[in-house]
């Protein structure tokens, strides 16, 4: 696919229905979305306008969730509601500024979006093989564009508040698209950078990943802030709100290995959605790493759209200070012979609060399903909190489904065992922590990322 020059920015109108939301905060975000310029081919502007109208309508019918809503019972977002957001004003970054965020494995397979907008100067896709596209929607040839818009916002669950909100105001769309039977060996680095500004800013990045029949892709989705080479974990009282959505479509026999590395700054509010649909005989692996953000929520929804699909979900949440990290995953099985396996681990330090909710729906049609789920939580401090709720809903009888959850501290027995072998208490503790996190990290397909994250684990948890 050839790269064209960017079309001129286009600002669609967003006529709110007369009964605009009674929710003041939502109204504020919608007003911001209204002004969002979008780079897009003029030929498909009609589609965009319609999408934005439809989504705005869905948003106005809802209100911001509170702890009275079952889905948000343990996640208090009131701090977010107290802020006034505006669209980011700047968005220029230099190659040097993003150097610490890049991956050596994906030097020439990287696309960068700053505040949700494609940054061609920071991206490099020269290493991609024939038959795969990585870039934004407006650089996609028009014919492909017509095809792409059949996917955007067509995933189930698009009416959910934050997803619909994203659809009303995404500034650009990151597209990764592999043609049938194309196997991409190198990981594709999809880097979403937020710039921190004086005023709290509001960005809504959007991603679209399509693996056509028999294609195979590795995607590293990475959320970060532009920082001055210091660790961005330390809060500097510069809040921003990142409401992102990534839709993944996996066709027959295709494979996607998706790593989602969330490294927002200590001031960031991050509400993210990963919506995946899998056709028959497809594989999907998600490695969701959550380290950043003051408050973060990851909604991971997977729909099986064919038989014999395989889904592997690995999650690692490592939080401290007053961070809150919430993962809500939902697996909707609909066909026989599905295999799913989920392992979500959390390490919670200081006064942090971790929330996990894992739904697995096995309706009558999904016979011979083999579904496993395990959530393990490690509490490192007396004030750390965990809320976990693994959920199974099963109507098929010929299935094997298990789930488990544990909450504990570092076991005294294990420490003693290591000490009895001459390892001092401090090293023993660190070793156990490394191993706990390592179980997930070693599943990451990119070695350099494993190394960086292992260092972060050490930096955060070692005494």
């Amino acid at each position, binding site marked *: 696919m050839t790269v064209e020059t960017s079309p001129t920015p286009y600002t669609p109108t967003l006529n709110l229905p007369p009964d605009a939301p009674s929710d003041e905060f939502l109204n504020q975000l919608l007003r911001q979305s209204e002004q969002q310029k979008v780079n897009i081919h003029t030929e498909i502007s009609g589609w965009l306008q319609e999408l934005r109208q439809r989504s705005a309508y869905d948003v106005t019918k809802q209100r911001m969730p509170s702890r009275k809503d*079952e889905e948000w019972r*343990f996640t208090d977002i009131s701090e977010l509601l107290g802020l006034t957001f505006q669209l980011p004003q700047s968005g220029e970054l230099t190659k040097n500024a993003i150097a610490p965020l890049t991956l050596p494995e994906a030097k020439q397979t990287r696309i960068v979006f700053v505040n949700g907008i494609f940054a061609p100067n920071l991206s490099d896709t020269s290493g991609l093989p024939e038959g795969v596209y990585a870039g934004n929607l407006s650089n996609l040839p028009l014919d492909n564009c017509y095809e792409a818009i059949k996917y955007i916002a067509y995933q189930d669950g698009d009416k959910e508040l934050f997803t619909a909100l994203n659809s009303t105001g995404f500034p650009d769309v990151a597209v990764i698209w592999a043609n049938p039977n194309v196997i991409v060996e190198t990981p594709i680095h999809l880097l979403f950078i937020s710039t921190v500004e004086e005023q709290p800013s509001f960005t809504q990045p959007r991603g679209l990943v399509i693996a056509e029949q028999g294609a195979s892709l590795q995607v590293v989705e990475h959320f970060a802030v532009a920082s001055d080479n210091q660790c961005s974990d330390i809060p500097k009282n510069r809040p921003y709100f990142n409401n992102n959505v990534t839709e993944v479509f996996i066709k027959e026999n295709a494979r996607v290995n998706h790593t989602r590395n969330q490294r927002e700054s200590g001031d960031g509010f991050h509400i993210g959605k990963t919506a995946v649909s899998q056709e028959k005989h497809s594989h999907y692996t998600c490695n969701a790493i959550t380290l950043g953000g003051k408050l973060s929520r990851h909604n991971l929804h997977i729909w099986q759209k064919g038989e014999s699909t395989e889904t592997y979900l690995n999650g690692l949440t490592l939080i401290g200070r007053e961070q809150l990290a919430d993962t809500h995953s939902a697996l909707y099985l609909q066909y026989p012979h599905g295999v799913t396996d989920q392992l979500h681990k959390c390490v919670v330090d200081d006064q942090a609060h971790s929330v996990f909710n894992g739904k697995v729906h096995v309706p*009558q049609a999904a*016979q011979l399903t083999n579904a496993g789920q395990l959530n393990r*939580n490690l*509490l*490192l*401090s*007396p*004030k*750390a*909190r*965990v*809320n*976990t*709720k*693994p*959920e*199974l*809903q*099963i*109507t*098929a*009888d*010929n*299935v*094997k*489904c*298990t*789930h*488990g*959850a*544990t*909450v*504990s*501290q570092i076991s005294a027995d294990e420490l003693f065992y290591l000490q009895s072998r001459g390892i001092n208490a401090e090293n023993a503790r660190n070793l156990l922590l490394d191993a706990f996190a390592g179980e997930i990290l070693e599943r990451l397909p990119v070695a350099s990322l494993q190394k960086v994250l292992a260092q972060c684990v050490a930096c955060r948890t070692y005494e």
Partner: protein
Amino acid sequence: MTATSVKTLVNQPYKYGFITDIEADTIPRGLSEDVIRLISAKKNEPDFMLEFRLKAYRQWLKMTEPDWAHVGYPPIDFQNIIYYSAPKKDENKEKLNSLDEVDPTLLETFEKLGIPLSEQKRLGNVAVDAIFDSVSVATTFKEKLAEEGVIFCSISEAIQEHPELVKKYLGSVVPPGDNFFAALNSAVFSDGSFVYIPKGVTCPMELSTYFRMNNGETGQFERTLIVAEERASVSYLEGCTAPMYDTNQLHAAIVELVALDDADIKYSTVQNWFAGDEEGKGGIYNFVTKRGLCKGKNAKISWTQVETGSAITWKYPSCVLVGDNSVGEFYSIALTNNKQQADTGTKMVHIGKNTRSTIISKGISAGKSSNSYRGLVKVGPKAQGARNYSQCDSMLIGDTAEANTFPYIQVENNTGNVEHEASTSKIGEDQLFYFAQRGINTEDAISMLISGFCKEVYNQLPMEFAAEADKLMSLKLEGTVG
């Protein structure tokens, strides 16, 4: 197995579905402050009780019916329920002096249910409080228990004779405004059992309450209160049945348990309310609040339940572990068939240090039923060294039944240890084949497999009830696998 024999087995009638034709003292339908005053007056209650009821009623008016449970039913018209119905008593006699004075029709009813109230016929070691619609008709072995200082009587009697105890403990575990159905119960509860075990006493026999709902339009709102003083110990069992009606009846009960230092309460339930027919018509709505408070150190409360009846079950026997080293246990079998819906489980709230809890839940769903386990394990910030182990197993029989698990785990203390496991399985062809090889037919094989699946819970029931429960389960399941 042939199709016809499956059908005949599935259509096994509900054995306890008969109606007793008895003259009843029934108040008009509907609920208002006047109705509550009337109930209170009929029972000749002291003022504090009327106050308690009115306060609960006023709270209830402000509450909305909960909708978070995984069950569906048409809205209940609370004004179309009769809140008080009692077998008519002889006006001249204020109080029954002995069992001989109880209406013989009533005694017959309980006889039919397999609960003979005359003490000679009864197994020597079980005392029974029989409750018919809204009132307690008889309590056996009262004198023998009194010798040990144990009080076992209906709650109305306790209100008259031991008001200080009732006043102290009633509503102390489940406050009137706890939830919608608890508030309703607190406002209109008619009768129930009261047990008080004094310091250091081990109750010499099993205590038991038998609930029978007879009137088709009454709701049953009973209230049980069990208090075990320091070092006291008691084992208590409740059983329930109701006639078959086309309409749904509401049963909203409250059970409160209080265990002081070193006390031990074991509460077992075999619930077999009418579950409605295969089409899901009729049956009891069983919306019950059961909670035990381990108030003292080293106290222990153990719930065992075998839930086989009711059209809808909404019930979470809970333990609040306040005392240090206290123990909470929950053993449950929930069986649903046809169109029954059950949303049941437990709450273990760890507040004191070194508190421990165990949850073993077995769910069996057959037919088109839905069976959900919903549990909460909460470890508070001060519950140092708390420990919980939960295990929820579901068995699905047929591919139209639904089994769900919704465990909530909330931990706010890093010295706690919480483990939860759940699994789902079915009776496999290979298992049945194995039995068949050894000459055991399918029906027997299933019944044995179910017994094995539920064994951990049966082991917790008093001996004779375990046998009864096992029989009940196989009866309920006959013909579901063919």
